[in-house]
């Protein structure tokens, strides 16, 4: 665990597979955030994928910001959504877990429901072994900036 992964009222989780083109944008954004001076109480985690073991970290946070990429166009556009726990919509929990299911798990196990947001970058480049697309790479600074802005708003 790095220093940026310990403690914090705002938890930023960037996730994705860097071996599959733009799929890794969320994780790369999290790694960039870890290299910045963050507001007090902001914690960042970079993960290959979401897993149930994150439920406790989520339950301990006041606000959670997920960073991801998804198939869609135009490539590079960033979407913003406020998430709700996916209660009653059980998805698989053993491997990859969707953010809403993870929120529901945190609520069921720990009785905590932090506010949660999702920032996703649209892309059409997820081939195994592919590098970041031009649009994906160009979106990275904005993804980092928007995550930071959101974190500042809620850490205050």
């Amino acid at each position, binding site marked *: *665990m790095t220093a940026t992964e310990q403690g914090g009222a705002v938890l930023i989780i960037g996730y994705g597979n860097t071996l599959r083109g733009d799929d890794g944008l969320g994780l790369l954004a999290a790694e960039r955030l870890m290299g910045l001076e963050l507001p007090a109480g902001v914690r960042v985690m970079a993960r*290959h994928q979401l897993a*149930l*073991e994150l*439920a*406790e970290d989520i339950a301990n946070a006041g606000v959670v910001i997920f960073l991801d990429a998804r198939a869609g166009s135009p490539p590079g556009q960033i979407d913003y959504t406020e998430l709700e726990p996916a209660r009653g919509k*059980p*998805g698989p*929990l*053993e*491997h990859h877990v969707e953010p809403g*299911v993870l929120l*529901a*798990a945190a609520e*069921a*196990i*720990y009785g905590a429901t932090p506010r949660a947001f999702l920032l996703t970058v649209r892309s059409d480049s997820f081939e195994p072994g592919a590098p970041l697309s031009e649009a994906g790479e160009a979106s990275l600074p904005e993804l980092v900036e928007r995550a930071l802005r959101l974190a500042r708003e809620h850490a205050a």
Partner: protein
Amino acid sequence: MTRTIKIDPVTRIEGHSKITIQLDEDGQVADARFHVTQYRGFEKIGEGRPFYEMPGLMGRICGICTISHSLASALACDEIMGVRVPDTAVKLRKIINYASILQSHALSFYYLSAPDFLLGMESDPAKRSLFGLLQSHPDVARDGVALRRFGQQVIEWLAGKRIHQTWIVPGGVASPLSAEVRDRILAELPHIYEILERGIVSFKRSLEDYRDEIRTFANFPTLFMGMVDAENGLMEMVNGRLRVVDARGQMIVEGFDVHDYPTYIGEAVEPWTYLKFPYFKPHGYPDGIYRVGPLARLNIADALGTPRAETEWAEFRELNRNVVLSSFHYHYARLIEMMHCAERIEQLLNEPDILDERVRAQAGPNAEEGIGVVEAPRGTLIHHYKADRQGRLTWSNLIVSTTHNNLAMNRGVLQVAKQYVDGTRLTEGMLNRVEAVIRTFDPCLSCSTHAQDQLALAFELIGPDGTVLDEVKRS
């Protein structure tokens, strides 16, 4: 008329498979098979690559027991280099393997199998899942999450990543342990012991409810194989010898050198599955059926060498007054092994030289063959490589934990199908029990599937009198 029931896919296991159950004219179970329908092929992928890439490459076989694959691979590479691994590196490798076993057992017990125990074999399949467990037994789910998190956290603290690390290297490990990480791990252990004690007490209390499953879940005599310490027969997971005992606890082989595995282990191939069938060579195929993994390890060891786990182990061995035969008790064995792993981590972290900075021996290729064997979460894992003089792999053979149990899994499916499946009236509970017997072994099919020679899969159309009416083979 002869009918076949298919359970496809089998759920809550690692990988893809199906089970077929063949009924006779009276609707009674005539035969049953566990088919593994995925193919991996890592033995071929390694060929032509430099040996020192293998721990990183082979660790990619699996995301659950990646550590054990990297470690078995590194042990084989140590031999190709012809080096003596520094003592501290041996201990650090052991610690990370114990952490890996702990997190994998937590996944198997709490995430995959606890829904069967706590929600019932007959319960609604839509709710009989980990998600259902979160709703109905959040305290148990919390314990499972905490255990898995701990194991993964230890891996991350040591190796920098939870999965697919590159810290385990030929010759040792890439970096020494810091005092800070040692102290962090030690600080978490009291809580881990508390959770495990709670889990063991609760599981033992529930055993009465599973009398039928204990009686019929792959409960038959087989040999058992696992690793023990060469000097005193204690349970060991790395750098030990392999012991084989029979169903009465008689010693068949007290401890053979892992390099002699081809003398003791043969591998048979059947045309209807990608999973091979290892067998104990001196007894032939298929009479040389044996089991590996947590149940086998508790059956073959003379002692565990850690106080909390050893107390539980002594009670466990009283279940059958010696060797425990029912595969249902793999679950129980996993709980005891998790305790053992936590205690061994503590013992090793308290070794005076654990912070020593000499953790890696360096060398080029000095031999053309290497064999590495470890106990992975699911049992004995063998990596065997041959390399040319430049150290490029020319051949490899992996015998993966799940594969050793293939004969027993198939026989177990037949046993439980005969007990629970009635072709005239199928219920969810029947079919789930057939799946659940496979889950007791916690098979990892992603790790274990590869074929010898041609890839082959057979489809058979079987008539009412049992004759094969049509047959299609693809390769």
